[in-house]
């Protein structure tokens, strides 16, 4: 039998005005197990806490019930006080007689009666409380960054800077991500490569950073502080330790017509290639789908010309096992496919391009060497039409995305401005629904495009783009402010395609047991207060994988995610929540129902040998909960048919004791 002390707080008049606190403490004194019962003006005050501490010592209390304000308010306070007096903090229960009683009831008799019942329920629960100790788990002092774009690079650099080892896993042959494909960046018009490539080099040179390019995460096991990750290093058929990146092989390779993904298919590359001159790591990669040697065993030219002897046609995928304390997701985005937007003739005309393709067409390292030429005939375009919100803010039929892609207004202003600056003989139209430019110097930038560069901003949407036989694009649009329909003969149409999370993110989220929203963006632990953490402990979010954002915002979030990861890695041990599930192995059926509903992957199964009552031994499959991973939701306890799974602090019997105390037998 527990020795329980009851402490009824007046909370000044907050409770005492509608609850007869003396009656409550007197009545509860007679409950079984209660050896001490009192009431006091402010239990949370220092003197109130001293009453609690003294009573614990003087009456050798094993359990404490405090009738006071909401446990959300002072549960921690009273637990701490109890612990100071030598009582296990989890032997304290709160009966909420303020928010859920005195404040909502005006009738003192009813309020008092309810307070007594709530007190009884808490006493009934404390009878079944058991001392709980928070467990500890060690922290592996290394971080994994998944994705090597600007978000991943910034996060990795910040973590490395703080003295921790970081691995970057990037599925492309080089790090750098989408930013490497951009020409200039708004609102300052720095060249993207000029600000990004030094950071890429920093990554390569930093002792704390290891880059696994052309690699993918294969499996994630473990939990915060102790993740076990399998990384698949895809075969490049090139020994990266020998390759000097001289590029000779990429000039000699006879397979010339492979669509160049770096230039979005606007030109071709060879079967052995280096994506671009500043690639990190700067090594060649053989594209197995197109290499003659790998497909038919006939060729071998690259091996012949390679002076370093780096070509290795027999190379195999390699699996690397690593342990990490923290994982940062920085998987980024891609523009959506526009094949469902027939009205813009994207698949019918080469001169209708996406904004990202337009970046390549204006980039000095792009297929046209930076001269803006019509992809169809290589002539200089005179009339350009930019269409905003293509697939963004769409709520109709699964063609587009319901959200605003956030970056299009600004990059379109940039494109329009740059075109007008370089080619003053052009007419540039931008069709917009709204121009959204919140950001430092953003609106000023957009206004400059209009005021200084004479870009025609037209409020309205393009309804139809029709390619004409002479190569012109007939653009039919609406000018809502002038209330007229426009027909423009354009040379090029540039579509601001919506952006969506990288398709690899969905599978990754499953491996990480990190949650996603309906658009496949990773969910943050709290939309305002914990924006860079996933609800799954130890997983942090960096960049567009969490939601659309531009480069400045991505970099800030990347550093924020790094700070959170550093905060975790700096700890030697993690304290766990002691109110976690546990399985009674003798009752467990091993049916896996609990495992299926666990959002954290905290439950694993093992075959365990049991000494049975009849002295035989039996091997049974039983569940075991990792207390460091379990967050204590209790989903498993209900999924379990045998009741083997129970939750410490909110056990079946505790909750039923509360139910009984509230209902009482009729």
């Amino acid at each position, binding site marked *: 039998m527990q020795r329980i002390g009851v402490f009824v707080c007046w909370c000044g008049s907050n409770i005492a005005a509608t609850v007869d606190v003396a009656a409550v403490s007197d009545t509860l004194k007679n409950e079984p197990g209660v050896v001490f019962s009192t009431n006091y003006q402010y239990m949370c005050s220092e003197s109130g806490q001293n009453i609690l501490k003294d009573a614990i010592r003087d009456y050798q209390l094993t359990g404490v019930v405090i009738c006071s304000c909401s446990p959300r308010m002072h549960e921690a306070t009273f637990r701490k006080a109890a612990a100071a007096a030598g009582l296990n903090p989890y032997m304290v229960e709160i009966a909420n007689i303020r928010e859920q009683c005195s404040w909502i009831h005006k009738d003192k008799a009813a309020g008092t009666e309810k307070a007594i019942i709530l007190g009884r329920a808490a006493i009934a629960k404390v009878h079944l409380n058991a001392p709980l100790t928070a467990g500890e788990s060690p922290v592996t002092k290394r971080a994994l960054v998944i994705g090597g774009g600007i978000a991943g690079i910034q996060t990795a650099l910040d973590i490395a800077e703080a003295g921790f080892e970081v691995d970057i896993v990037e599925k492309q042959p080089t790090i750098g991500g989408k930013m490497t494909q951009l020409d200039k960046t708004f609102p300052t018009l720095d060249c993207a490569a000029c600000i990004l490539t030094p950071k890429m080099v920093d990554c390569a040179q930093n002792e704390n950073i290891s880059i696994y390019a052309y690699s993918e995460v294969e499996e994630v096991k473990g939990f915060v502080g102790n993740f076990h990750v399998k990384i698949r290093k895809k075969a490049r058929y090139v020994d990266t330790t020998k390759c000097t990146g001289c590029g000779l092989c990429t000039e000699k390779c006879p397979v010339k017509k492979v669509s160049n993904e770096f230039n979005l298919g606007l030109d071709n590359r060879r079967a052995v290639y280096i994506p671009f001159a500043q690639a990190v790591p700067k090594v060649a990669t053989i594209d197995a789908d197109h290499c003659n040697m790998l497909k038919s065993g006939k060729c071998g030219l690259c091996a012949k010309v390679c002076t370093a002897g780096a070509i290795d046609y027999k190379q195999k995928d390699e699996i690397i096992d690593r342990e990490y304390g923290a994982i940062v997701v920085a998987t980024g985005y891609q523009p959506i496919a526009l094949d469902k937007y027939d009205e813009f003739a994207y698949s019918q005309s080469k001169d209708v391009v996406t904004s990202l393709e337009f970046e390549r067409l204006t980039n000095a390292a792009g297929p046209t060497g930076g001269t803006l030429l019509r992809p169809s005939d290589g002539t200089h375009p005179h009339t350009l039409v930019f269409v905003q919100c293509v697939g963004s803010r769409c709520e109709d039929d699964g063609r587009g995305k319901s959200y605003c892609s956030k970056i299009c207004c600004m990059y379109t202003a940039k494109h329009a401005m740059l075109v007008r600056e370089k080619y003053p003989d052009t007419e540039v139209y931008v069709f917009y629904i709204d121009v959204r430019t919140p950001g430092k110097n953003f609106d000023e930038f957009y206004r400059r495009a209009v005021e200084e560069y004479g870009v025609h901003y037209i409020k309205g949407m393009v309804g139809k783009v029709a390619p004409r036989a002479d190569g012109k694009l007939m653009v039919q649009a609406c000018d809502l402010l002038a209330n007229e329909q426009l027909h423009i003969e354009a040379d090029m149409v540039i579509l601001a395609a919506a952006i969506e999370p990288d398709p690899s993110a969905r599978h990754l989220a499953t491996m990480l047991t990190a949650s996603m929203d*309906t658009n496949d963006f990773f969910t943050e632990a709290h939309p305002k207060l914990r924006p860079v953490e996933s609800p799954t402990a130890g997983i942090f979010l960096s960049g567009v994988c969490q939601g659309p954002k531009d480069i400045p915002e991505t970099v800030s979030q990347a550093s924020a995610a790094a700070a959170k990861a550093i905060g975790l890695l700096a700890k030697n041990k993690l304290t766990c929540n002691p109110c976690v599930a546990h399985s009674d192995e*003798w*009752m*467990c*059926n*091993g*049916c*896996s*129902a609990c495992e*299926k*509903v666990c959002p954290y992957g905290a439950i694993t*199964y093992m075959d365990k040998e049991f000494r049975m009552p009849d002295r035989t031994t*039996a*091997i*049974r*499959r039983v569940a075991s909960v990792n207390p460091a991973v379990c967050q204590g939701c209790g989903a498993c306890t209900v*999924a379990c*048919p*045998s*009741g*083997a799974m129970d939750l410490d602090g909110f056990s*079946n*019997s505790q909750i*039923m*004791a509360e139910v009984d105390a509230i209902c009482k037998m009729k």
Partner: protein
Amino acid sequence: MQEMMIAKARELLKSGAVQRVLGWKAGEFAYDVEPAVFESAQELEKSFVYNDFCGSNLSKYLIAQSRKEGKTLVFLKPCDTYSFSQLLAEHRIVRENVYAIGIPCQGKTDGETLKGKGFTGILSAQCEGDTFTVHTLYGDKTAARADVLPERCLNCKSKKHMIYDELLGEDGEVLDSHRFDMVEKLEKMTPDERFAFWRGELSRCIRCNACRNVCPACTCEKCVFDNDASGIAQKAAADSFEENMFHIIRAFHVAGRCTDCGECSRVCPQNIPLHLLNRKFIKDINELYGAYQAGEDPDAKSPLTDYTMNDAEPGIVYHRGGNQ
């Protein structure tokens, strides 16, 4: 069929491929067929039977048998294979230790049903096509097959074996049964009528636990109703609510796992149509979360350990079923 089965079992025992055979054994009366384990050819010869009384579902016994040393040969009727498959999905049976032979089934009768139809002094029974012949002390009597089969066989959901190592005879098809008709009929009643119906049925419960003990989904190492710590353990009813709680909880615990084999109703000594509770859950699951048949696809996610973001709200109960 019986001879083929015995021959097969004998052969497998002899070759050492299996150590024991799980089948049916003749009892004192013809209709008293019961599950049994045979370990030798002699035992098989002596009492192994397969006839129209072999209704019991053997899959549950594999939980214990498959944990023994060596392999167990088991004969499974189509509906038993659903339970077998479901138990495999729940990791209750050691698959490597089982050699499953699928056997055909044309529906099984039982003593209760026959006696209920007025047959007495039953010696044996036989079915040819649609005619059922009962040999009794008082001579042979015939009846239409449909008249002597229990409800579960009349509304058989499938003649197709879900899983087996070997098949004797032909495999059948999944049938288009009317098994939810009675549930539907009850749903159409007013709540008062439903209440009256169930009061009439459940008030007969004597808490013998036969339904639980026979159920191939009720395989807990320790049942919550036997566990003192669970807070609801009570063999004897402390109050009149006890049986309701037992049956609702039992049906809930097997919801999404029950294959609708109908054993619960078969064994109930009080003839309570317990399978209707399970079928109600199955019907609700099918209607609310998409068609699901436990034991059919081992990779399918059980509806109660799965969800979609657009699931119906519990308030839907106020709008469907019952014309209050």
